[in-house]
């Protein structure tokens, strides 16, 4: 049972159901991997004792009908977990132990899974390389000194290094899809409102959405099935019937219309990304899909819009960290205002401060119309671009990122160059759409590259189906060799 942890979630679930492996064996195998992978710095907190206990409980009284029977899972440290420290990668929440469970994680536990630990991420999910975490950089298992993407970098790294059979992240501007692309894994940002935001540390509430990160498209469907669903505690949760994404997976995509947007061919894009895109188009065409050239004319304005909307919402959401009710408090203060200012100065890292200041400024008196209102109008135009095109296509195919994973420190001195990483992922969040990042190839250094399938609102099943068919015909294999222990 040496390669137990090398299997897909689906295979693991089948083996548990066939009693070929016990939940305890499985849990111990992952714990062993995690203990040998400290170099990757993926975990902020581990909950091994609790996990082992849950595994034993499962083995004593197994329920094989559940979607995730006796499966240990690590999750991004942005999901509040009852009685388990939840930091959001920040010093300001370094001592925060929630007394409640996020809806999405509760859904996973109700499906038979249990917690292995909490995964490192960019501070408050603000970053594209996992270099803004208070708990240090995460390393991509693809190669030493390589970033795993962000903000769900601990999640992507842990998944690719076999430290968890599947995981979940959150995606505000690409934070699931970009790290999935950088690690050769599958990541889905669902339609805004499909997964409850309740109990997730908030970054930008009109953009944040939780989603699965997995090794295969089938695993992604399984996880989405388990985590999604209506929640009355989230006022933007969509009330709709539960779907069975994994049971309904189909690889026949004949006749589907796939849009190819010309605006996603950006200046200075490496040739490899272009070739990857061509390869993706050919695979879908050979499977009987029809490729249609489309235009999303406001694409180039998506990032500037995002860098008004997201910081504005963040500055408002992060106002709650005042050192009074929870979290870090500065000890060197002479009065209340001083306490607020020192707490926030010492508690937040540089990127978070930058975004709070951008947000405060664009919302401040005299600037609101010029920035925030303007951004809301452009957001409307971006959404209309998609609405118009989805009248004639079923899905849109684009690259996931404009490059492969980069080295630690390569982009930290220039915030705008870091932001440009999310150029292909951000429009989807602004329009509230679902999008799937699929591993599709490697660059000349052997680093993974991904392609993105964008879908209509609540049309997750279709992009999963296309992804499923694509995966079978693409032949991508992650060639990560264990160098870290």
């Amino acid at each position, binding site marked *: 049972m040496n390669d137990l942890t090398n299997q897909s979630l689906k295979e693991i679930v089948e083996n548990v159901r066939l009693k070929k492996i016990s939940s305890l064996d499985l849990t111990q195998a992952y714990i062993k991997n995690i203990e040998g992978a400290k170099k990757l710095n993926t975990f902020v907190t581990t909950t091994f004792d609790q996990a082992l206990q849950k595994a034993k409980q499962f083995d004593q009284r197994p329920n094989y009908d559940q979607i995730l029977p006796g499966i240990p899972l690590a999750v991004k440290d942005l999901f509040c977990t009852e009685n388990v420290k939840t930091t959001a990668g920040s010093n300001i929440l370094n*001592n925060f132990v929630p007394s409640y469970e996020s809806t999405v994680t509760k859904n996973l536990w109700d499906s038979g899974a249990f917690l292995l630990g909490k995964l490192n991420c960019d501070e408050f999910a603000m970053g594209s390389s996992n270099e803004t975490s208070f708990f240090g950089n995460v390393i991509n298992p693809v190669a030493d000194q390589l970033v795993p993407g962000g903000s769900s970098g601990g999640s992507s790294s842990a998944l690719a290094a076999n430290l968890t059979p599947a995981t979940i992240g959150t995606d505000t501007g690409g934070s699931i899809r970009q790290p999935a692309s950088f690690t050769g894994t599958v990541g889905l940002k669902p339609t805004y*409102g499909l997964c409850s935001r309740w109990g997730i540390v908030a970054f930008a509430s009109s953009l944040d959405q939780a989603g699965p990160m997995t090794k295969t498209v089938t695993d992604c469907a399984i996880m989405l099935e388990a985590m999604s669903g209506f929640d009355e505690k989230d006022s933007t949760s969509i009330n709709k019937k539960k779907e069975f994404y994994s049971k309904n997976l189909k690889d026949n995509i004949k006749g589907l219309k796939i849009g190819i947007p010309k605006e996603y061919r950006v200046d200075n894009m490496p040739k490899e990304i272009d070739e990857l895109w061509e390869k993706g188009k050919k695979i879908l065409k050979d499977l009987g899909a029809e490729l249609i050239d489309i235009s999303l004319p406001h694409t180039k304005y998506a990032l500037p819009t995002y860098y008004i909307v997201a910081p504005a919402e963040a500055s408002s959401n992060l106002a709650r960290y005042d050192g009074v*009710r929870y979290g870090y408090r500065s000890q060197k203060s002479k009065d209340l205002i001083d306490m607020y200012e020192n707490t926030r100065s010492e508690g937040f890292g540089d990127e978070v401060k930058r975004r709070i200041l951008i947000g405060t400024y664009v919302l401040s008196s005299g600037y609101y119309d010029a920035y925030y209102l303007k951004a809301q109008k452009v957001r409307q135009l971006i959404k209309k671009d998609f609405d118009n095109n989805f009248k004639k296509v079923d899905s849109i195919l684009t690259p996931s990122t404009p490059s492969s994973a980069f080295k630690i420190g390569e982009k930290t001195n*220039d915030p705008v160059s870091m932001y440009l990483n999310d150029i292909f992922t951000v429009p989807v969040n602004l329009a509230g759409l679902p999008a799937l990042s699929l591993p599709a190839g490697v660059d000349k250094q052997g680093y993974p590259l991904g392609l993105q399938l964008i879908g209509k*609102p609540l049309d997750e099943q279709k992009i999963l189906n296309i992804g499923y068919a694509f995966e079978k015909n693409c032949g991508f294999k992650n060639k990560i060799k264990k160098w870290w222990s």
Partner: protein
Amino acid sequence: MSLDKEKIKHVAKLARISLDEAKVNSLTKDLNSIFKFIEQLNELNTDKVEPLTSILNESLRYRKDQIKDGKIRDKILKNSPQQNEEFFVVPKVVE
């Protein structure tokens, strides 16, 4: 438009974040490059565009005004950096 140091200090005050002079300098540089990037939006005429205020097609639903939990004071106070029995404690605000 460019952001000078005084503006940055003012915004930091609004955001209740104390900044030393070195931070003010680095933030002034960063924010100016970010705003230069953001201001590409000015190329677009949006006079006749309705601002997007919600991405959902449905409007927010109402719920009954009911108390569903309660008696969780200890849980709420548990994470407080400084507490005194049933209260949050802050530095003195009135003499």
